[in-house]
């Protein structure tokens, strides 16, 4: 199993703490771990076709920002999604479900990690972890559907939004990822280095 799947398994265990274990701390870690399971699933899916070195792959993965991914998910949910190609295909139901879960879990994760005034109930937490499990299943449906190829390289995981924010280098990186998603990219370390520079210069989210 990959990191994302391992994290999901761990989240399930943490969501059902033994009597002797600290309940609230375990439930908080369950929620945080479940969110990161989904986050890493989407990031790895977005970059897996990249043909560069492992260090370049890491640089690309580090360029993904929680906030940007949330905004892209929200665009899917509000019908404002613009795909890479034209015309924009209709949003598959499963993709919409994944976007819903991502937005929800990002807020839950932040509350679980930072808001100590919150109390969590086991059933609610297990429900949320199960929702992430369903998101994994929904994503697998999308990725095996040839008609959903654009959705797979979708705004959920794309970096085009960074380019939209008029950062020249962001545009270049988005273009690089776009080529990657079209499966026409060649090994090109220079483009990855652009992505890594952006990672270094952008203000990162507090995660």
């Amino acid at each position, binding site marked *: 199993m990959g990191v994302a799947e391992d994290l999901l398994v761990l989240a399930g265990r943490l969501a059902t703490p033994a009597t002797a274990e600290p309940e609230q701390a375990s439930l908080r870690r369950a929620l945080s771990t479940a969110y990161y399971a989904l986050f890493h699933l989407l990031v790895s899916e977005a970059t897996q076709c990249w043909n560069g070195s492992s260090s370049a792959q890491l640089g690309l993965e580090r360029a993904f920002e929680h*906030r940007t991914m*949330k905004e892209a998910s*929200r665009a899917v*949910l*509000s*019908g404002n999604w613009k795909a890479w190609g034209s015309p924009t295909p209709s949003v598959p139901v499963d993709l919409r479900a994944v976007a819903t879960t991502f*937005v*929800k879990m*990002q*807020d*839950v994760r*932040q*509350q679980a990690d*930072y808001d100590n*005034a*919150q*109390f969590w*109930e*086991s*059933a*609610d937490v*297990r*429900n949320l972890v*199960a*929702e992430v499990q369903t998101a994994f299943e929904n994503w697998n449906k999308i990725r095996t559907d040839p008609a959903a190829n654009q959705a797979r390289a979708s705004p959920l995981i794309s970096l085009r939004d960074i380019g939209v924010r008029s950062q020249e280098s962001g545009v270049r990186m988005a273009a690089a990822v776009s080529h990657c998603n079209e499966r026409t990219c060649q090994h090109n370390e220079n483009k990855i280095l652009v992505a890594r520079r952006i990672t270094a210069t952008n203000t990162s989210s507090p995660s």
Partner: protein
Amino acid sequence: MRPTRMTAKELKEVEEEVQQVAAKFPEIIWIRHAFRDDWDGDPAIYFQVLLKDETTADFEQYRALTRRIEDTTETDLGIWDTEYLPYFRFRTKSAQERLKDPQWE
């Protein structure tokens, strides 16, 4: 539901719509909602749903119930046509009695 700057009348309408959703589900003891920014500062509407204890007896049924409540609320209030992001928290009566969470009193 209006996207922004709701008037008192509109807020009352939202409250009525929320209670109409609650009335559709006999498993619900009450639903509360609050407008506030989410962790990222985006406008959001948070729903707290207190459920009867028996709803968690079967976990799959519990999951299905919470999903139906979320879907019904989002549809009936037209939330995705607004700028508000919906967030739901569910809790059973006995869990609240044990946790004694002031945010759920």
